[in-house]
C-alpha cells in the first residue's frame, strides 16, 4: 500500500503505476455532474472578470486543489449542532464527467481524480500532460469510504446543487483506492476492455 498526502508533487505521481493500491490523506473536495459543469462553464471558460461570488469560489478551490484531489461522490450526510459529517459516501460513475475532467485537471492543478469505472482518452491525456492519476475507489462501499472522511471543512453550492451534488471540502485519512489510469499514459480499463472483448468473442461463438 502506497501512502500519499495532499498537496502531492509531480514526482510522487510519476512513481505511481496502474494496479498500485493507494491510501490518500489530506484535503479534497467532492464534485460530480453539476460541479464539473459549473467549474468549466462558470469558472474556467467564463469571460473575465467573473461575477464576485464565482471569483471567490474559484480562488477558494484554487487554494486547496493545487496538488490535491477531487472525489466523484454524492454523499449522505448528517448535521448535528451545525457540524456536518459523512454517513455514506462511495465513488460514483466517473465517465459522465469525461467532457469536463481534462479542463478541470488543467485549470486547478489536480493530482488525483477519485471515482469509479474509469474515464476516457481525454482524461488519460490530461493525466499524462499535467501529471495526475485516476484513483478507482471501492464502489458501493459507502460506509467504509465515509469512515475515511474524518472532517468536513466547508461546503459550497449546497442550496443550488442539493446535498449530493454540492462541493464538500473534506479531509481524508487513508482513503483506499487502486490506480487505474496513470501519468504514463496507461489505462487499466483500456487493457482490460481488450481482454473482455476476446473473452466475449469466444463465449458468443461457444453457442
Amino acid at each position, binding site marked *: 500500500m502506497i501512502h500519499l498526502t495532499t498537496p502531492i508533487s509531480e514526482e510522487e505521481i510519476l512513481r505511481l503505476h496502474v*494496479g498500485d*493500491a493507494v491510501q490518500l490523506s489530506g484535503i479534497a473536495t467532492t464534485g460530480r455532474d*453539476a460541479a464539473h459543469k459549473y467549474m468549466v462553464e462558470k469558472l474556467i471558460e467564463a469571460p473575465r472578470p467573473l461575477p464576485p461570488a464565482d471569483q471567490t469560489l474559484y480562488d477558494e478551490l484554487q487554494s486547496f486543489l493545487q496538488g490535491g484531489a477531487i472525489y466523484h*461522490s*454524492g*454523499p*449522505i*450526510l*448528517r448535521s448535528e449542532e451545525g457540524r456536518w459529517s459523512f*454517513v*455514506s*459516501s*462511495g465513488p*460514483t*460513475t466517473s*465517465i459522465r464527467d469525461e467532457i469536463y475532467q481534462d479542463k478541470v485537471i488543467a485549470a486547478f492543478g489536480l493530482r488525483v481524480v477519485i471515482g*469509479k*469505472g*474509469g474515464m476516457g482518452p481525454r482524461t488519460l491525456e490530461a493525466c499524462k500532460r499535467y501529471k495526475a492519476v485516476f484513483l*478507482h475507489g*471501492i*464502489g*458501493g*462501499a*459507502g*460506509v*467504509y*469510504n*465515509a*469512515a475515511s472522511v474524518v472532517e468536513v471543512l466547508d461546503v459550497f453550492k449546497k442550496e443550488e446543487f*442539493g*446535498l*449530493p*451534488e454540492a462541493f464538500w471540502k473534506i479531509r481524508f485519512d487513508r482513503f*483506499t483506492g*487502486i490506480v*487505474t489510469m496513470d501519468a504514463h499514459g496507461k489505462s*487499466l*480499463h483500456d487493457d*482490460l*476492455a481488450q*481482454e*473482455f*472483448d476476446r*473473452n*466475449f468473442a*469466444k*463465449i*458468443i461463438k*461457444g*453457442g
Partner: protein
Amino acid sequence: MKSTAEWIGGKGFREAVFELVRLAACELPTDVEKALREAQAAEEPGSSAELTLSLFLENIAMAKERQAPVCQDTGLPIFFINQPEGVSRRLITRVCQDAVAWATTKQYLRHNAVDSVTGKNSGNNIGEGFPAVYFTEWDDPAVEMALILKGGGSENVSSQYSMPYAPLDAGRDIEGVRRVVIDAVRRAEGKGCPPGILGVCIGGDRGGGYAESKHQLLRRLEDVNPDPILAELEGRILADANRLGVGPLGLGGKTTLLGVKIGKLHRVPASYFVTISYMCWENRRRSIRIEPDGTWRITG
C-alpha cells in the same frame, strides 16, 4: 376489528414500512453476503478482485453496526406490494411515501428525487413516480411488501434488445437471448458495480419488460426457476458471464455476476424484446409481512 383504513393508515403500519426502508438501506440480504464471501474465496489471493471483495464485506459489517446506508446511492425505492381485496392502493402509496420521507430525515436515504426539467432536488425523496409502487391483489388477508433500492449506476447500464439483433446474429430463440444478455454484461463492464445480479424478461412490451425484469430481482440467489428451460438458461448465462473476466468493479477477476433471474411475458407476434435490469453487487432487497392486526415480521 379495525377497518382497513385504520389498519393501513395507522402508526404501526407506517413504522413497519419505515423499518423495511431502514433494513433495505443498511443490511444486505443474507444470500448476497454469502455469495460475496464465496466469491472472495474463489479469487486470487492478493489480487484487486480479492481486495475489492474483502472491502465490500468489511463495508457490509460496518453498515450494519453503524446502521448507515451500505451505499450512498440509495437509488429509486421500488415497492412491490401484495395486497388483499378492498384495500386502498392510494392509501398504501401515501404510507410508502411517508415512510420514505421519514427515513430520509434519518439519513437512511440520500436526497435522490430530482425534477427532470428544473433540476431541483425535492429534498425528501418524494416526486412524480418517486418512490415507485407496484401492486398485485392476492387472496391472503395480510399485506406483503418487497422493497428494492435501485441505484443509478446499475440502472444506467440496464438495457433492452429488440430481436433479432443483427450485430450478434441473435435470433428470436434461447440462444439469441443468451447472446444479448452476455452483450449487456460486457457493455456494462464495471459501470454497474459488478458482481451484478441480472433480472431478465423475455417478451412483453417495452414497459412491461422492464417491470418484469425488476420483479425478477426479488428472487433469492439460490432459488431455482420452476421453468426448466429458463433454469438452464440462467445457469448457462451465469457461467458464461463469469468467463468474461470483468470481475468486481470491472477491475478484472472471476466474479462478474452473482446471479441471473429470468422471467417471461407473452408478446405480440411482431415484437420480441429481451430486457435486462442490472443490479449492483449489493442487491438491496428486503421484504415484510404486515398482518391485519398490525403485527409484522421481516420475511426476506
